[in-house]
Structures are given as structure tokens and as C-alpha cells.
């Protein structure tokens, strides 16, 4: 059984560009959450999707948006990239219980 998979694993973007990160949840998990982890910090909650709708949102600007597809996979989009958006982006899936399973993350570097 595959766990949570994220793609790509690494990418480099230029300031002002847009980026899309992808997440496939663990089989049977219908809830997907995204987190941003800056270097040396704990993960910060961006938003959560359930039944293709954004259910909760953290303190992130509207430049951060997302989507969940009928197969429960999800995308995170970031527009107008800033240097400060450089971080590890983590996707977590849950079957609706308290336990969340994390992917390996996507390392985004903005130059």
C-alpha cells in the first residue's frame, strides 16, 4: 500500500512565478492537508480539503490556493512567488480520524 506521495521532490522557481505542487493521499484517505515548513521551524498549516472543498485555512495569503479532485488527490498552487516562500511543503492525508500521514515533501527554492 503506497503511502502519501508528493511531486516533484525538488524544484527551483524565480520570484514572481507560479508553482503547482501535487499530492496523492494514502489509499482510502479522503482528507488532505498542506503544511509549509521553513528551515529550522515546525510545519505551519496552510489549508485542508475534504469532499473537494476547502474546509479549514491557516494564516496564509490568497496567493496560496488549492484544489482536491474526485479521487482525493490534491494540488497546492502558489502565485507571485516570493523569496520567503522557499520551504519544504508537506502534504498529509487522513481517513477522517485524528491521525495524519505525511508525505516526503516538496522542497521549493525561490531565487
Amino acid at each position: 500500500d503506497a503511502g502519501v506521495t508528493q511531486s516533484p521532490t525538488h524544484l527551483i522557481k524565480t520570484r514572481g512565478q507560479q508553482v503547482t505542487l501535487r499530492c496523492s493521499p494514502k489509499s482510502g484517505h479522503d482528507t488532505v492537508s498542506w503544511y509549509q515548513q521553513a528551515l529550522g521551524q515546525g510545519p505551519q498549516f496552510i489549508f485542508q480539503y475534504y469532499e473537494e472543498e476547502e474546509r479549514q485555512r491557516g494564516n496564509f495569503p490568497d496567493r496560496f490556493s488549492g484544489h482536491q479532485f474526485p479521487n482525493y488527490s490534491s494540488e497546492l498552487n502558489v502565485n507571485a512567488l516570493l523569496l520567503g516562500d522557499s520551504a519544504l511543503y508537506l502534504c498529509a492525508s487522513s481517513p477522517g480520524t485524528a491521525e495524519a500521514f505525511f508525505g516526503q515533501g516538496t522542497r521549493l527554492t525561490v531565487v
Partner: protein
Amino acid sequence: AQSVTQLDSQVPVFEEAPVELRCNYSSSVSVYLFWYVQYPNQGLQLLLKYLSGSTLVKGINGFEAEFNKSQTSFHLRKPSVHISDTAEYFCAVSDKVRGGKLIFGQGTELSVKP
């Protein structure tokens, strides 16, 4: 709103010694509590969780944690550490809603020396 404070940013310890990583939390509602481990360049792996019941929770790799409601703490312990336990450890809380968001502490870097 919830918050989590991990009281030690770095904990150096010798192999086979005991270790305790400290975590305090603040919340106006009942919460679930978690400890995650992160190895270099990897995602987060769940070590253990407290949802209800016994306040002493056992997890993977020989770790355990004790929930203390009066002190709002959830400290992680291991009686004898190994070199392979070297990693970053995160304490987290979530409210008791379906798949609730996790609020993480800043992390504790555990460094096990031979």
C-alpha cells in the same frame, strides 16, 4: 486557538542514556496530542498519539509519553537512546474535529553521540 511550546531546541545525549523531550501546550478546548519525528530531508513520521484513556502512551521505537492535563504537558521519553534516534522531534496538538489541523511546536533536535 492552540499553541505548542517545546522547551528545548537542542538535546545532546550519549548513546544508551535516557532522554526526555519536553512539550507544553495551551488550548481553550480539549485536544489530541502527538509526537512526530523527522529525519533529514524526509517527511514526518508519527511516533505516538494521545486521544483519550490512559495518560501513558507507548509508541514506536521504544518511545513513550505522558499526558498531564493539570500541567498541560506531553513530554516524550525513551529509557535508552540509540545513534539512529538522532533526528528532529515535533510535538503537535489538534482540536477534536474530523481530521483537525495540527499545530506544531518549533521542534527539538535530538543528537545522540557515541
